[in-house]
């Protein structure tokens, strides 16, 4: 990972000049990635603002990934994996959930706007849920504007 940070302060604009947020999605290989794949093969359309990073399991998602995403200019982060009980590795998402409970409270205490960090369970068959999730998250973050607090750390 290179340390590129968007120094212009804004993630991107459309041709009409409207703000388009950059959203990082950390997803697990077995459920959410397959769900997103299903959405693609089913030719469902959703907002193009999301950049997906596929990991073996939600248990692989280090909280530092999320901090690093914000550091590198993400306006929002989405973390998603198998529903509880459905983990390919039996317990990975239970461990991840414990970590998120702590991490979410820590970021709240540090004053990071929790509307920029979303957690979700999306299974391999829930393409519609994935599409709705991305659309909702994108619209919410679009309304919030660029994450200037973090990008402005200079």
């Amino acid at each position, binding site marked *: *990972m290179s340390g590129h940070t968007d120094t212009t302060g804004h993630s991107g604009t459309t041709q009409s000049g409207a703000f388009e947020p950059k959203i990082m999605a950390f997803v697990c290989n077995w459920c959410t990635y397959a769900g997103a794949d299903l959405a693609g093969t089913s030719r469902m359309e959703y907002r193009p603002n999301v950049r997906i990073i596929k990991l073996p399991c939600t248990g692989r998602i280090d*909280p530092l990934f999320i901090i690093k995403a914000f550091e590198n200019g993400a306006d929002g982060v989405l973390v998603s994996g198998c529903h509880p009980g459905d983990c390919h590795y039996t317990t990975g998402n239970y*461990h991840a*959930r414990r*970590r998120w409970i*702590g991490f*979410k409270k820590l970021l709240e205490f540090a*004053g990071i706007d929790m509307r920029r960090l979303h957690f*979700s369970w999306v299974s391999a068959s829930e393409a519609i849920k994935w599409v709705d999730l991305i659309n909702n998250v994108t619209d919410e973050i679009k309304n919030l504007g660029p994450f200037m607090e973090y990008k402005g750390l*200079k």
Partner: protein
Amino acid sequence: MENALRQKAKELLESGDVKVVIGYGWNRAKTRTTPVFITRPADVDKLVWNPLCVNNLSIYLTRKFKDILALGKPAIVAKGCDIRNIVVLITEAQIKREDAVIIGMTCEGVVYRQELWKGGLKPEMMPTKCHNCDVRNPHVSDFTIGERSTFTPPETPTGMVFDKIKAIDAMDASERWNFWVGEFSRCIKCYACRQVCSLCYCERCITEKNMPQWIETSAHPRGNLSWNLTRAMHLVGRCTFCGECERACPVNIPLNLVNQKMIQVVDSAFEFKSGYDEKTHPPMIVFKPDDKDDFIK
């Protein structure tokens, strides 16, 4: 108490049961205490016990100090709060209970600002942890030295740290952000908080991993935030609120606030308090199928 401690140390060293006694001694100017490592019975008079004994010596049982472990089986002089750290080290398989002799000291509190101490011990001289201490009588030890303390901690925790956490919780997100960015902006990345922490025992810290460089090493607000959040996250469910990180911080970042906040989060979410029971697993390596996940949509 001091004499009883020296006597016990002498017995242990003379019997050959332990090779080194890790305890507190005076610094040269007799203004502070400093860790001492007694290997000869003749030197036990160097051990002292007074309200300046603030250091958490449990750090010398970790693999950070291989030269001290090489001396042989240690006996450690420990207050109740230090024993909590030793218990965490046991639950995390860093040491075995029988690897160290714990000389538990009953404790009526330590001094917060050692440089101002003239003698005596009043509640207003103590840090927040002492006001709410429930381990003034050591809970895990081989020997206990001192008279039994009759102190009972208040039902709701009191003190500066708890008041400040309440004040920060009452702020809105942008105020909290500005508060923490302001505090962390002073960070000079000296890593004293890590070096002094007995639970930061990784052989290679994440901040030293530079392929890729996860945490910016320069004293820049972005890397400072990343470092301090990561440090706090790595201590979730483990920190015992011994307060050494804040004491060691040369720029007075209120690390106790974030550590105590996470202790409260762990207590309410997982009903766990670290450092009391050596048989219980730390909360972040276990789970319950019904952990609360109302924020996960």
